[in-house]
């Protein structure tokens, strides 16, 4: 893979491997502990159907190199969208100004080979012809309209992206990755008399666009968006107050991402700003809970062959049977904390600094039949679909917004309720998990995680689980 990336990314700018050594040599003064150069070239194509026509098509190009120099806790960073050697040297000068200059050191990077491929190194933009992409969007729209005459508006998007990266570090690392990504979203608006509501469904991953044509997956998204919109049309006001909550499998795993995921990122724990700081080895969840972050799942949206620092991704156990076992680390925070990177060093692009980020975060399956879990609740909420979430990692308070939820009455799922925000406390909520289902599912591949202004694709997942009490932000 390295040859392909060098040929496509470096060669056009007249760069060879020895130039990378040169830039790194230049970066490393005696007070610089670590430096790296990150090259990236991306292409993205997106199509939008609305009002029954594919009215928008967008193509975007991104290319550049980011240069970082680290001295103790200090980081200097500069980037350029011009890849010629003089521009790189200039950016390196700027980045290393964080520390006083000293004797240069000689560095020779060498290919450390990725050794495995979790996704095909293939440009997904070309995996369907443009006519076929447009035809697919029309089929999806027609499917949505066939589902129900109350469907009034269908907006469907199809996105394919191709990302080529190469990283060379002063620790000798030289690695590259070719990362495909596809995604489809369907948004429908239904109308019945004066009532209007919406439903959305989406899916994707690091694969080709055939993902949406195989097994009618695109059409399935249309059906699901309409089903959800119609459920919301007959939803009653959600209850307000604390009660038991059963979360469905898959996407509701956003609970884990917000409630504990961010709080277990290395930077917040090194700085002591997380509600989980200094709690390694302590019980932070019920013994039913084992939570991992796993960047090694094939074709998943949050997966990576290597992270953006060239570290092979892995499965990291965050919580094992309720006990806090691990943080997610990038190189910088790992070295300051005296541990190893867990392959969680990620960045939005060459123009952003890497930091510890999640990949695919999920809870392992338990033993309970999901039906038994629902049957155990006398009065509560069953939430199966969510919009976004947010967490304050210091206080531990987190929210996530249900977009499809039902009342549970006497052990049975009954009336749908309107969307409501659920709020809880990260270090407490998993202690309140009293039942875990045997039905682990991962989400469909639509997650975007934001941190300090940087967005990266992620995955979440969980089995059906019961939280004994959570606060539900309804109106009645």
């Amino acid at each position, binding site marked *: 893979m390295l040859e392909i990336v060098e040929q496509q990314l470096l060669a056009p700018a007249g760069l060879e491997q020895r130039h990378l050594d040169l830039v790194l040599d230049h970066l490393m003064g005696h007070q610089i502990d670590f430096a790296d150069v990150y090259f990236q070239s991306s292409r993205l194509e997106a199509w939008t159907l609305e009002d029954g*026509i*594919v*009215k928008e*098509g*967008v*193509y*975007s*190009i*991104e*290319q*550049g190199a980011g240069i970082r120099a680290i001295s103790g806790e*200090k*980081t200097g*960073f*500069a*980037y*350029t*969208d*011009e890849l010629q050697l003089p521009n790189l040297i200039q*950016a390196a000068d*700027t980045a290393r100004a*964080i520390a006083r200059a000293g004797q240069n050191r000689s560095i020779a990077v060498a290919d450390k080979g990725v050794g495995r491929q979790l996704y095909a190194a293939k440009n997904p933009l070309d995996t369907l012809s*443009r*006519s076929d992409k447009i035809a697919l969007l029309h089929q999806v729209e027609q499917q949505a309209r066939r589902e129900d005459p109350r469907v009034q*508006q269908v907006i469907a998007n199809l996105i394919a992206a191709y990302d080529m990266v190469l990283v060379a570090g002063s620790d000798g690392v030289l690695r590259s990755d070719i990362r495909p990504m596809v995604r489809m979203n369907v948004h429908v*608006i239904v109308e019945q008399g004066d009532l*209007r*509501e*919406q439903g959305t469904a989406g899916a994707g991953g690091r694969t080709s666009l055939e993902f949406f044509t195989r097994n009618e997956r695109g059409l399935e998204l249309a059906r699901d968006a309409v089903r959800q919109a119609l459920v919301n049309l007959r939803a009653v006001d*959600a209850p*307000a*107050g*604390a009660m038991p909550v059963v979360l469905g499998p898959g996407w509701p795993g956003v609970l884990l991402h917000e409630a504990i995921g961010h709080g277990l990122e290395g930077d917040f724990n090194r*700085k*002591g700003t997380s509600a989980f700081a200094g709690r390694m080895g302590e019980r932070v969840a019920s013994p039913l809970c084992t939570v991992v972050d796993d960047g090694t799942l094939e074709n998943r949206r949050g997966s990576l062959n290597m992270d953006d620092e060239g570290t092979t991704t892995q499965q990291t156990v965050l919580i094992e049977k309720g006990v806090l076992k691990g943080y997610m680390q990038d190189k910088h925070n790992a070295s300051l904390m005296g541990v190893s990177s867990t392959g969680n060093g990620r960045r939005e692009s060459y*123009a952003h600094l890497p930091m510890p980020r999640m990949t695919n975060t999920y809870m392992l399956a338990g033993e309970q039949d999901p039906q038994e879990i629902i049957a155990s609740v006398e009065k509560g909420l069953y939430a199966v679909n969510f*919009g*976004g*979430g*947010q967490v*304050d990692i*210091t*206080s531990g*308070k*987190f*929210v*996530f*917004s249900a977009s499809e939820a039902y009342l549970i009455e006497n052990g049975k799922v009954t009336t749908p309720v*309107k*969307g*409501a*925000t659920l*709020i*809880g*406390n990260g270090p407490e909520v998993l202690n309140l998990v009293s039942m875990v289902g045997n039905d682990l599912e991962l989400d469909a591949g639509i997650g975007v995680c934001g941190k300090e202004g940087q967005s990266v694709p992620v995955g979440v997942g969980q089995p059906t689980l019961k939280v004994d009490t959570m*606060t539900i*932000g*309804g*109106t*009645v």
Partner: protein
Amino acid sequence: MKAFDHKEKYAQLRQLVEDVLAEAGRQGASSAEVAAHSDMGLSATVRLGEPETIEHTRDNSLSISVYMGQHKGTASTAELSGEAIQEAVSAACSIAKYTAEDPFSGLADAELMATEFPDLELYHPWDIDIDGALAMAVECEAAARDYDPRITNSEGATLNTGQAVGVYGNTHGFVHGYPSSRHSLSCSVIAQQGDSMQRDYWYTTARSASALDAAAGIGERAAQRAIARLNGRKLKTRQAPVLFRAEVAAGLLNSLIHAISGSALYRRATFLLDALDTPIFPEWVNIEENPFVMQGLSSAAFDAEGVATSRRKLVVDGILKGYVLSSYSARKLDLQTTGNAGGVRNLSIQMGEQDFAALLKTMHTGLVVTELMGQGVNPITGDYSRGASGFWVESGEVQYPVEEITIAGNLKTMFQQLVAVGSDDDYPGSTRTGSWLIESMMIAGE
């Protein structure tokens, strides 16, 4: 930071825009529009008194939309080499061969292009160097850490300075642009007492360095906010009046703008459908946008399509008087564009007489919200449900901080139940409002 030669940069980008428009014509576009942008900046962060991160930012971008008759194609590039631009123009033209004919697409009408370009004083480069930037961030963070022994930790203070040049052009012959600058200083600290740990922040942002609030004041306010949150309690679930502190009330104004924006209207995806000329607020509410505020954070003489912007009233005596339209959404609605391609510019609500303390007295008993969490707003129904923290108030006096609660209602009702807007317009940003007192909302807690 050294100012880049904005005149030279402007000339370069203008030439680039003209060249790309010409190239689009050669490739068969019947019309086209191009926006080019270049910026450079410096971001210096200190944490616990020591430099933590120095980032030098330097971004370029070019986006092009071509129209082949009524077929549209769009492309953008974040790299301004000849090859990348060539690739982008070809991609836009080739995409336009596949998109459907859309009778509403196209450039804004030629007669709507801006013809006057007043100097809105948006460009004030700051020649601060790295040491100067770090010193200011250190001063800010130190003020926060020295404010109270309960400030035990810090996420740091950051000074940002940036300058940019943007040029927009289209095949009506309109090609204009201007330089701008923006600077900010922010601070985020952690307060601790017993088991309670709370983070809060404050910031200042302006077009010119001289308009920034004092560094020490930013740090102190961040510290005050973090300390005030310590030992927060939950509330029992109840119905009560809610006072949205000015900085979160600005979010309610943004929800209004979303609801009256063209794309939400033509998709019928808004709770304010067909609300033009109907009362949506009490009759004392007036809301306007003014694109011509000197040094305004969203000031501009033309919008993202070259259309002249205008100072106008969106809400008069509580009645909705204007939508927020681009030429595309306007055509879909059979209306005229309002010069809002790219959003509203310097929105403000007419302030009331009462300061924050007077608003507390008016509310008597209820909830002050100082922070909202999550995205729980349904734009179609107006249903509103969000995580909140703030303070519980009795007899017009703050009693204790509250957290881990939600507030819920419906925006349509909340707008109608607006009791008062304060005079306490004391936060940074382009949207101006005082705090909003809403008659009643559902608070969920224990």
